[in-house]
């Protein structure tokens, strides 16, 4: 249940919503639906841009304060990517349903938990982006995200990509970073105890995972065959997923 398991995704899994994606990686399985642009309610209607609403629903129990926090993080990130100016007075609604998440065998998990759940953030970002792409919502860029934990094990310090809940618990610090397809740092969340230097290393690791394949020239991604896929290349994953989707849509051409 670590980086070794490659991410899986399926698009358009919900026939009744404009766009949808089912994504599973590192033990997390999520489904996202995107509807929009649709009519916005009075209270969140903006005269010059679309209102982006993000709803995160836990697999078990009613959402609590921490879901609201995750929502606000996603909302502020997605609103940056979506061309909200294209659809004034309207609403673009992203609903994320957590279906399955790895559990920590060493504790009996409680239903309501208030503390931040770092490990799930990348999956949330990835799924939302895929759903938006499948809905054909105009965006200025895509994004990729990953989680990295710094674990101190018998003196040695090592970085764990896509840490398990257990690793998160024992890690000295946990980090989530998201990059736009233009290599801009879109989201950076860190918690624990670390130095600037450590964060820098984390940044390197995360960037390697999120931004490996260079932005596509002539549209076709430069698949670097010679390079052995050490860790998952999120951007390449995103691209290949979309390529197969588009190919399927345009089979008739």
């Amino acid at each position, binding site marked *: *249940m*670590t980086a070794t398991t490659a991410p899986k995704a399926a698009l358009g899994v*919900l*026939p*009744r*919503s404009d766009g949808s994606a089912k994504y599973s990686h590192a*033990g997390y*399985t999520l*489904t996202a*639906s995107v*509807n929009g642009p*649709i*009519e916005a*309610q009075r209270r969140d209607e903006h005269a010059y841009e679309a209102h982006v609403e993000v*709803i995160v*629903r836990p*697999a*078990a*129990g*009613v959402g609590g304060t921490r879901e609201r926090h995750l929502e606000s993080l996603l909302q502020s990130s997605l609103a940056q990517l979506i061309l909200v100016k294209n659809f004034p007075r309207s*609403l673009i*609604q992203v*609903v994320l*349903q957590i*279906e*399955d*998440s*790895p*559990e920590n*065998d*060493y*504790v*009996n998990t*409680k*239903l309501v938990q208030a503390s931040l759940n770092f490990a799930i953030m990348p999956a949330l970002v990835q799924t939302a982006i895929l759903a938006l792409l499948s809905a054909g919502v105009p965006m200025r860029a895509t994004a990729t995200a990953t989680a990295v934990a710094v674990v101190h094990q018998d003196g040695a310090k090592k970085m764990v990509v896509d840490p*398990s809940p*257990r690793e998160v618990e024992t890690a000295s610090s946990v980090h989530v970073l998201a990059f736009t397809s233009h290599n801009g740092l879109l989201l950076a969340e860190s918690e624990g105890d670390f130095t600037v230097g450590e964060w820098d290393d984390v940044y390197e690791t995360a960037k390697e995972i999120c931004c490996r394949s260079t932005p596509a020239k002539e549209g076709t991604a430069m698949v670097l065959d010679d390079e052995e896929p050490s860790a998952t290349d999120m951007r390449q994953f995103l691209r290949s997923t979309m390529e197969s989707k588009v190919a399927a849509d345009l089979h008739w051409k």
Partner: protein
Amino acid sequence: MPREAEPSLNEKQFVTQALQENLRLDGRQLDQYRPLELTFGDQYGVADVTLGKTRVLAKATAEVTVPYIDRPLDGIFTIATELSPMTSPAFEVNRPTETEVLLSRLLEKTVRRSGALDTESLCLVAGQKCWSVRVDVHVVSHDGGLTDAACVAVVAALRHFRKPDTSMEAGRLTVYTPAEREPVPLSWLHSPLCVTWSFFGEDGETAVLDATWLEEQVRVASCTVSLNKHGEICQIAKLGGMPVDAVVLLQCTSVALVKVKEFSDLLDRRLAEDLKKREKGGFMAELRAENDR
């Protein structure tokens, strides 16, 4: 949020007319279900049911808590149903709609009140501590037949679920983590399932199984029968609508039994398959290995 728009006059008129000629828009027989599929998640207690375009997800969880004062020897068992905007933007968070209320009430009657789960087995320390078992039902995609699909999901999730093992020594309760002791299944008594009939025509003469969302919007009456594969009926709900001939209802229930048997078989089969998968070092082993390093 804008309300769900009614189907057009043309559709309403046509659906009814076609049914009188035993025609359904998707070419099914009147008493034919859409293909029903059931899968389980990596974790215990996650069931994913698809019925045509309808998809329902159920997740079972258990927590230790304080029993209700009036029932000190019973555990707590709740089924939570919420239709999120994922089902349709017409649904708002924390704004229960009629669909939602009816659905949860039917599940409540079918699974909880019929004593499918032995709640006394959930009691840990009389009057002090007990298990609270909770099933969250997520309607991911709604194209009719919610009740029937959701019921399968709930039952499947509960039968698949494992709760942490416990022990009592010297009057002190210990709840073991999965790492210490393999979790244990719930004590399950019987598996009631729902079969919903929809009635069409001026005096509801045409009875149809597993109506789609469009058909549900046009139907004149509906009736949900809940029973287990032994033919024991747990509840029958015909909530208003056109009056329907009693004889017709009787025929419905007998057909329902056939369907329920089919569903039960599917359930047993899938559960067995999943068990096999886990036994030969499936997910848990992997997790354990990963935790140990």
